[in-house]
């Protein structure tokens, strides 16, 4: 009894056991873990005979028996420290699942004829107790040895479930711990209403004289064929001898063969164990555990969730944070995308507007250039006609003068009338020729200016802006010095612009001709009395005496490809506006041309 009560002290005793069992230090060590459910000594007592036998049968190996509790057994297998395992059926199915151990033999027992039906539970009550059925245990105190006990708890638990009870809730379960004898003693002492004993313990205790016969009785005793004890439950296979996953097949085979041929004489006295037989099917044990929802058949739901939260709260928190961040990030990204999309479409809109405005502006410039070109053509033709008219009018006027002079003289002298008539005809035909020229010129110049008040600064700015690209191509700088404000002049803006443009082109050609280092054209406007003045000065080489004198003559030009009409046209246009275009002093060298126009609403 005392030895049974001693707690498990595995590491302390392991060395002793090893010394006892090792015969050859050189032999390959084979480690057998055994479930020491009732203490190390009892385990060694129960199984040393078997190990001794194996040592004798297989002298090439050094067998070592390691008595371990449930936790240590699991840990040793996980660490790969065991070659074989001897344990109860319940623990076996768990380790089979967890560590891949596989049985090579099953214990043969004297209590049964069939090793498949060898372990069960006896639920015992006092002989005089009123309890008759398992259902009667509802609300009663039921004592067991340990939650991990197979025959001593788990098998009975399944039987209670099968009887329609929910033992964990409806029965007041108590655990007293090993040795199991205490359970029987507590029931006998009336400390609890009932107790769970592994099959045959009651009979053993009675046989050993530790319990008075008839003091306890087994509830709903079952009769099993070939089984020699009273049980309250179905029976399950006896203990298996299992090899671990890494154990060599050859060793397992030889150990199994040795075990099968073990004689009962090697069994320790006082136990029911008689030898080993081929391994039986442990499926019923699996079924049992599945019903009890014990490992490895722990149901996932409730416990899993709670465990998850408890074990992985940091991860869960991380996941939650990540999820929250994702939601926030997604929302933010969508917000950003929306924002950017809006910005983009706004930018697109602005761009389209800008393009439209640009197109409109370009259209205006094109129109303005077309107008100017048209005006230039018209003016050129007009100027050509005017030039021609002047050239032809001179001789026509001379003819008329001579004819009239003759007529006066002939009348005084009383000349023949036919002579007078003929001279009259000459005069009339000259006048007619002049009229034709005049009509032609009027026709070509039918676009009379439509005078409106205009700001000369506007005309200059417009002309300079049209001229700038041309100037840039020739690398000539155009400077403007505009009067702060000018009174309006009366005229047609496009014609004044054309004059400024002509003067600018003239200046550009002068600068080009000079090939000077300073390539500049200066345009200035100023108020000069009752007139407004525009001056265009260039940094060219200036004009010689002849050019200065003949500058404004039609068809006079200093340029090989020039028509000589530019300045002539300009002068006509300016004079058409009641203004003057003259050569001005150019103090800085070069040429300066200026034109003045009368202020609108003046004395005219």
């Amino acid at each position: 009894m005392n030895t049974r009560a001693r707690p498990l002290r595995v590491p302390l005793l392991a060395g002793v056991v090893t010394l006892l069992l090792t015969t050859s230090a050189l032999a390959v060590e084979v480690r057998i873990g055994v479930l020491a459910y009732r203490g190390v000594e009892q385990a060694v007592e129960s199984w040393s005979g078997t190990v001794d036998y194996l040592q004798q049968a297989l002298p090439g190996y050094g067998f070592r028996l390691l008595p371990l509790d449930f936790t240590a057994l699991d840990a040793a297998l996980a660490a790969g420290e065991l070659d074989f395992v001897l344990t109860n059926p319940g623990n076996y199915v768990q380790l089979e699942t967890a560590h891949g151990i596989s049985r090579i033999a099953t214990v043969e027992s004297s209590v049964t004829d069939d090793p498949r039906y060898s372990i069960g539970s006896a639920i015992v009550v006092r002989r005089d107790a009123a309890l008759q059925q398992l259902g009667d245990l509802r609300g009663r105190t039921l004592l067991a040895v340990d939650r991990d006990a197979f025959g001593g708890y788990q098998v009975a638990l399944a039987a209670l479930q099968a009887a329609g009870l929910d033992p964990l809730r409806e029965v007041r379960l108590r655990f007293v711990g090993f040795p199991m004898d205490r359970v029987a003693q507590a029931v006998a002492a009336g400390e609890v209403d009932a107790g769970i004993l592994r099959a045959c313990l009651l009979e053993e205790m009675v046989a050993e004289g530790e319990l008075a016969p008839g003091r306890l009785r087994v509830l709903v005793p079952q009769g099993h064929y070939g089984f020699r004890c009273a049980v309250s439950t179905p029976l399950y296979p006896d203990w298996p001898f299992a090899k671990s996953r890494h154990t060599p097949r050859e060793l397992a085979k030889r150990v199994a063969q040795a075990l099968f041929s073990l004689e009962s004489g090697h069994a320790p006295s006082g136990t029911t164990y008689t030898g080993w037989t081929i391994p039986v099917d442990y499926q019923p044990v699996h079924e049992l555990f599945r019903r009890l929802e014990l490992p490895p058949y722990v149901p996932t739901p409730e416990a899993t969730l709670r465990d998850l939260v408890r074990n992985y709260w940091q991860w869960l928190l991380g996941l939650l944070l990540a999820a929250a961040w994702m939601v926030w990030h997604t929302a933010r990204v969508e917000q950003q995308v929306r924002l950017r999309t809006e910005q983009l479409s706004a930018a697109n809109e602005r761009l389209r507007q800008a393009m439209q405005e640009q197109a409109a502006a370009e259209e205006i410039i094109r129109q303005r250039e077309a107008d100017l070109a048209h005006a230039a053509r018209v003016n050129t033709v007009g100027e050509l006609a005017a030039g021609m008219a002047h050239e032809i009018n001179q001789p026509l006027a001379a003819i008329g003068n001579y004819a009239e002079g003759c007529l006066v003289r002939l009348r005084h002298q009383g000349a023949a009338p036919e002579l007078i008539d003929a001279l009259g005809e000459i005069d009339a035909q000259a006048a007619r020729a002049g009229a034709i020229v005049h009509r032609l010129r009027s026709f070509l110049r039918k676009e009379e200016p439509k005078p409106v008040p205009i700001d000369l600064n506007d005309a200059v700015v417009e002309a300079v802006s049209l001229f700038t690209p041309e100037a840039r191509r020739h690398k000539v700088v155009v400077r403007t010095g505009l009067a702060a404000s000018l009174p309006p002049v009366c005229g047609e803006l496009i014609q004044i612009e054309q004059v400024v443009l002509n003067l600018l082109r003239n200046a550009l050609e002068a600068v080009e001709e000079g090939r000077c280092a300073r390539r500049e054209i200066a345009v200035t406007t100023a108020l000069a009395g009752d007139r407004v003045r525009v001056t265009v000065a260039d940094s060219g080489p200036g004009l010689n005496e002849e050019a200065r004198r003949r500058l404004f003559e039609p068809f006079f030009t200093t340029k090989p490809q020039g028509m000589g009409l530019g300045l002539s046209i300009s002068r006509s246009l300016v004079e058409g506006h009641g203004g003057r275009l003259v050569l001005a002093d150019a103090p800085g060298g070069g040429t300066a041309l200026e034109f003045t126009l009368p202020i609108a609403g003046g004395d005219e």
Partner: protein
Amino acid sequence: MSFEPTLFVVDDDEAMRRSLKWLLETLRLPLQTFDSAEAFLEGYDGAPGVLVLDVRMSGMSGLALQERLAGSAPHLPVILLTAHGDVPMAVQAMHAGAFDFVQKPYNGQALLERVQAALREARFRHERQGERAVLAGRLASLTPREREVLDLVASGEPNKQIAQRLGISLRTVEVHRHNLMEKLNAHTVGEVIRIFLSATGAAE
């Protein structure tokens, strides 16, 4: 001062110059031709007459010459020969004091008529200028005191006032009046005032 007008022709086109000479000689007046505005300014001695001037000339334009003469020779009527359509320029010339303008090509007879009209104007300007010179000469013959009295008479002051203003006796004023009327060859006070105004040019 007798009025013996001369015809002046300024044109840079020689054929025109000669044809104008041929036409204007039928008026049987002295005639001078010049081939440029500058040449005319050089050779003109201020004699009375009519100037026939082409507007379009290289060098100094007809317009510029006419504007210049409006200041220095106001007695000389100017006829401008302009090209057809040069209306703005012609208007400007008229504003500057030109007598007339004729657009080319013109009828010879019409030009002759214009020139004759200009000659009448020239005579009128000449005579007015002559009369003014005579009256100015008479005015110049007055003594300073007589002139003072004249100024006050012309401004309508009675003799009594004049005496007071000049600090002399009424009798002395009457003597001065008598003398100055004799010198001016005037018989009434009205005549005195007319002579005074035309001689000083205030009547124009």
